[in-house]
């Protein structure tokens, strides 16, 4: 039911040739439209923005809100085209003066979390901030995050690794081991799965969220207790595009302290690893979108290629993101995005469907926060 609804909805949006643009600079709004199929170049767009806002003497950064509510920058042709193609139906543009930019705002959920992403409210504080000169990421997606801090025990950490769009290997190894559990009969030794090695330069290592000898408790919401090393390996690889591992870190001193308990808890970590701490907290996200999960589930489907030579096999078999950037032909790309987005919608429905099939306990342990499910609340109430 959700499928047919969202499908037709998205299709309706795509049928329109014009893209509505709502551009905001400070407190000023400008509205105009662009042709979906001939959006032109980024430079032209940049000049258009400056012109419409009458700020032609300023250096600005242009950002837009994507379908997930993320504030993403527009600074080249590629992400400009992406922004246009994803506009559904409205494209929300945010213009900032370069010197006033809060880089932290770029990234996942920045817009959904704070209803007012930019604005005068925080400008004073922002100005005072020591500004790190980090270039704006070409690839907008986050690579890792700590999630569900509010529902997990403090000793555990749920880490999400976003493999998609990232050329880095996941880069870690797991092994069998024994861990100690508190049971009704006292302490008991039970077999467990542990991280045995991090590949230098791999995704796992670069996040700093996983360490050797961390015990793996869950993989994408499914407990690994009673599963063999091979099974867990297969589960992780099967989820590798969007891997959520719940670990019990071997080093318990870096645990995220929840604000609610901050006062009462004695173990406030204030040791030498604070830098690491702050690093990880920037990654800290409370929610994630099931829609994101289905992103990478989109299989590449090529329909009706009577002339199979037109698409070289090599291109197809290389990862989705690379093929996306490699193909210059815009119309072809758009067509693909169309199919891509379409399947996203469908997948969303499926995931929720499968979710209902899972028993209630499993649902709780599954890393889906309330927010994520409410988005499709029309379909299912848990």
């Amino acid at each position, binding site marked *: 039911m959700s499928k047919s609804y969202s499908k037709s909805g998205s299709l309706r949006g795509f049928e329109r040739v014009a893209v509505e643009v709502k551009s905001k600079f400070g407190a000023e709004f400008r509205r105009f439209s662009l042709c979906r199929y001939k959006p032109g170049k980024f430079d032209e767009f940049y000049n258009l923005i400056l012109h419409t806002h009458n700020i032609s003497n300023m250096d600005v950064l242009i950002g837009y809100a994507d379908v997930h509510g993320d504030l993403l920058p527009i600074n080249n042709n590629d992400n400009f085209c992406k922004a246009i193609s994803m506009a559904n139906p409205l494209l929300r543009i945010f213009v900032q003066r370069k010197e006033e930019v809060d880089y932290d705002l770029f990234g996942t959920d920045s817009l959904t979390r704070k209803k007012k992403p930019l604005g005068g409210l925080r400008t004073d504080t922002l100005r005072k901030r020591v500004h790190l000169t980090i270039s704006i990421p070409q690839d907008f997606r986050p690579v890792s995050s700590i999630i569900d801090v509010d529902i997990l025990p403090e000793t555990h950490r749920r880490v999400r690794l976003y493999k998609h769009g990232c050329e880095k290997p996941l880069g870690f190894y797991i092994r069998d081991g024994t861990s100690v559990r508190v049971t009704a009969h006292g302490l008991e030794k039970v077999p467990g799965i542990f991280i045995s090695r991090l590949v230098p330069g791999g995704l796992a290592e670069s996040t700093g969220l996983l360490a050797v000898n961390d015990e793996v408790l869950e993989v994408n919401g499914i407990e690994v207790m009673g599963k063999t090393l091979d099974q867990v390996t297969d589960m992780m*690889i099967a989820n590798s595009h969007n891997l959520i591992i719940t670990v019990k870190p071997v080093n318990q001193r870096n645990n995220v302290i929840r604000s609610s308990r901050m006062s009462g808890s004695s173990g406030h970590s204030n040791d030498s690893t604070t830098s690491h701490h702050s690093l990880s907290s920037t990654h800290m996200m409370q929610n994630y979108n099931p829609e994101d999960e289905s992103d990478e589930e989109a299989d590449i489907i090529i329909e009706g290629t009577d002339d199979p030579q037109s698409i070289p096999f090599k291109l197809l078999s290389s990862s989705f993101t690379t093929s996306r950037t490699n193909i210059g032909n815009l119309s072809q790309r758009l067509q693909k995005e169309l199919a891509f987005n379409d399947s996203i919608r469908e997948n969303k429905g499926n995931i929720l469907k499968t979710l209902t099939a899972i028993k209630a306990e499993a649902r709780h342990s599954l890393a889906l926060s309330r927010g994520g499910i409410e988005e499709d609340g029309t379909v299912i109430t848990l």
Partner: protein
Amino acid sequence: MKRFRRHGNELHRERIKQDLFQFNKTVEHGFPHQPSALAYSPVLQLMAIGSRSGAFKIYGAPEVEIMGLHEENAAVTQIHFLPEQGQLVTLLDDNSLHLWKLKKSLDGLSILKEESHFDLRGQPGAPPSVTTITVVLPHSSGDVIFLGTEGGCVFVVEQPSFREQEERTITQEAVLQNVPDDYRSRRSLGSVEALQENPRNPHQILVGYSRGLVILWDLQANQATHHFLGDQQLESVAWQRDGRQIISSHSDGSFYQWPVSNDRLPQPLEKSVPYGPYPCKAIPKIIWLATKQRTPFIIFKGGMPRASYGDRHCVSVLHGSKQIAFDFTSRVIDFFVVDEGGSESDCDDPSALLVLAEEELVAIDLKTPSWPVIQSPYLIPLHCSAITCSHHVSNIPIKLWERIIAAGSKQITHYSSKPWPIDGGYSTAPEPLQRDLLLTGHEDGTIRFWDASGVCLKPLYKLSTVNVFVTDADHNDNLNQSSEDEWPPLRKVGCFDPYSDDPRLGIQKIHLCKYSSYLAVAGTAGQVLVMELNDEAVDQAVPCTLVDILQDQDTFKWKGHERLNPHEDLVHFPAGFQPFALVQCQPPAVVTSLALHSEWKLVTFGTSHGFGLYDYQQKRTVMVRCTLHPSDQLALEGPLSRVKSIKKSLRQSFRRIRGTRASGRKRPVHGDGAAKVQEANARMDREALNEMELAPVQRRIEARSADDSFTGFVRSLYFADSFVRDGSYHEPSLWAGTNGGTVFAYAIHVPPVERRMEEPVTAAQAKEIQLMHRAPVVGIFILDGRGVLLPEPLEAAHDLSKSPDMHGNHMLLVVSEEQFKIFTLPKVSTKTKLKLTALEGSRVRKVSVANFNSSRADDYSENGLLVLTNLGDVQVISLPTLRNQVRYECIRKEDVSGIASCVFTKSGQGFYLISPSEFERFSVSSKWVVEPRCVIDIDEGLGTRTSQQRIPQDGPVTKPNSGEMVQSQQKYGLNRQASIGSEGDGKKTVEIMEHALLNDERVLLEIQSTLESESASADRLSFGHLNRNSKNVAGVQSQGQRMMNGD
């Protein structure tokens, strides 16, 4: 409110599931792995075979099989039927004796139950050899069992209480009293090697000692009466039927005949070395059988000339001047003779010799002058050449069935016409109601057709693909023909032949179309043969078409084996399946998938490099697609690079095996360095093992990439008539799935029949799907608008299935190792999916669509995906909703070859290899269960010997029906009223069923009715019309219901 209702639905669903699914491991087909003991009961006409795993099985008439399993995991070294009927005593290699009893279970079927067990205990402090049992002799009185030991004593234990009668123990001291001094002084007597009761006088038993002495012991006087002073190491002794002579065999290959008269120290009458004069090997067992014609049979094992034939496994039969050494390809375990002389008669009158070798059981007809082999109805060595693949075809039309049987019967001309000599007990299992074929492909290039309908896996026909190709084996034929006056007079018997002439001949994939009788087989060296069933022998050339899978990409170098060379000229093909087209893939890599569409006359095949489509009507290649990834070096190099890892793992597993063997050896060799060396070896192995286990096993977590090896490996091929390009127009299509998670779809244009030979078949790519998770695609299916799998080619045309719904939206089901995904057609987008690996960590190994009938409601059935995972679980997943229905543990997850060999049937059953020689049959359906249901009548008086009901001519053996039939049907919850049959119902039923099977039209009707599962159940009961004899209606109906399940 809503929740409550759903709960009710779930309960209802659970109930339906119970009616549909039930897991049973029912029967093992084939030959027991590592047999170690053999016994025979002439009274019950039953044979028992024990194996090293601690299991033993009783066999009687075909389909009569009863298994007993010792709790101890020790090899069964001896089995003896006790003279009281229905009891057996087994000796395990842990020196324990076990008493088993044949009992009736609640539903009237015979089962084996262990009654008690016994360990022989010696004096405290005595060495264990004193009580190590070497020989077991159950006394004919049924009161006692004599146990000969390694220490040289004979212990007497009461039976069934297993109480030792110490006062009757025959000690060496007592034996030596009357032995002449010069003989006695030489040495101790050695272990007890033989115990034999005088067939004419139950109070006399022969005791043979390993150092050569044989004594006759009088049980009443409790002393030795005769001493036979042998001067050779003794192996065995046997009585002549009249009790006047004995025969002893020795370790030097000789046998002696001794008189039993008043002379207490007799001299041998005759001494002979049958295969002398050069040194010969020992004769471990000898028997002597009298005939009416006075010329006795002497049958012995071994005794071959040590130097030139010492490695042969022979059983020799001497009858007057006639002598033949039956030469087996595997070690002979034991043998026995079935005789026709009653217990009161003067002569044995042997009719058949049964030899149990390590890999097969061979029966030799001794009544027919040429001593031919009797074809066995069971215990067939499936592994006569190693099984490389299997293929199951359900519900074979009677026409094809008969033609296969006819082709097979022409192959078995050299067998004896005598019926199988062992026929104890009878089966109450209902006649199979459809004909199922199991095809096994073998390493030597043969395909065997088995009747897999019932409890016995019967061989029907053997097809060889060898003669198509030029092989080294061709000129070896004349070597096997032994000339008349050769000595020793060896004759090869049995079919176990583990050596393949050329591994390239191995069969990898089989596809049989049961309606058109076309068969496609593909092999290790990229050969694909298309065959047709012909009832006449022909001489024909097989045209060969080379297909370049790489399509001229000359940067690649194939480093694997070369292709097989076909014969250019005419080849003789006997009646049966005859090849008429040969497709040779280039490079000649193993064919990894195969499909045949008999309606379109197309065959498709895939290797690790790509796939091709071949039109066997026009004998023309239609299309080739290379799936190779340019960076995939492994696939290019051929199988060589993979061998390394296999070798390594083999070495490891051998190590493991050696380790366990060393610890659990049979009779430990005492003293000497040999034992020490072995011990040291075992210790080293253990250490090596420990080391391996200590090294941390770690697994790399990495997303699969397009650059992984073997991504181009074609895993599945599928033909379907569906909506590939257009939602309004369906057309033939070919689907191919690779190891890298890519699915290719081709639309095929097949010209209409009248222009089929002129117009070319063309194929154009219509779709390509790259699964994001990149897991290997193990199955592709298309479901019609109702969610039902599209029928097999010609199935709908023959009106045997409902024609598919060609209006609704078709669905594409892609099964990868990790996920099940249903896509819409013609526009491919995901509809439903089940992520198995992400949820459970298991991967799909085998998948097939099966129809599950309800055991309760006749007209209710569901289609489901039958899935075997890498953990050995069998799961059923509903279609098209993709919900997990049930899961059963089926195969141990370590048993990789078992999992790899698994094959499913369309009715929810399956087979897998539990050993190289045995298929285990299992069923996930609660409706279709094929299991042995047999009864062995054990009467207190010996009055009704089942053998007296033996029917001389071939054909089904009919047995009287007692109440068991009724009870068995009740167990299945069948119509109780229908089964109140009078005596003799079962017998008639069998006859009628047999008739029905031969009656073509009726059977077709019947098949049709089973296939049309949705039609009214009332019509189906018209099965009763088949029988002309109104008094049998009840019996037949109840059988019919077993098949179709009337309410």
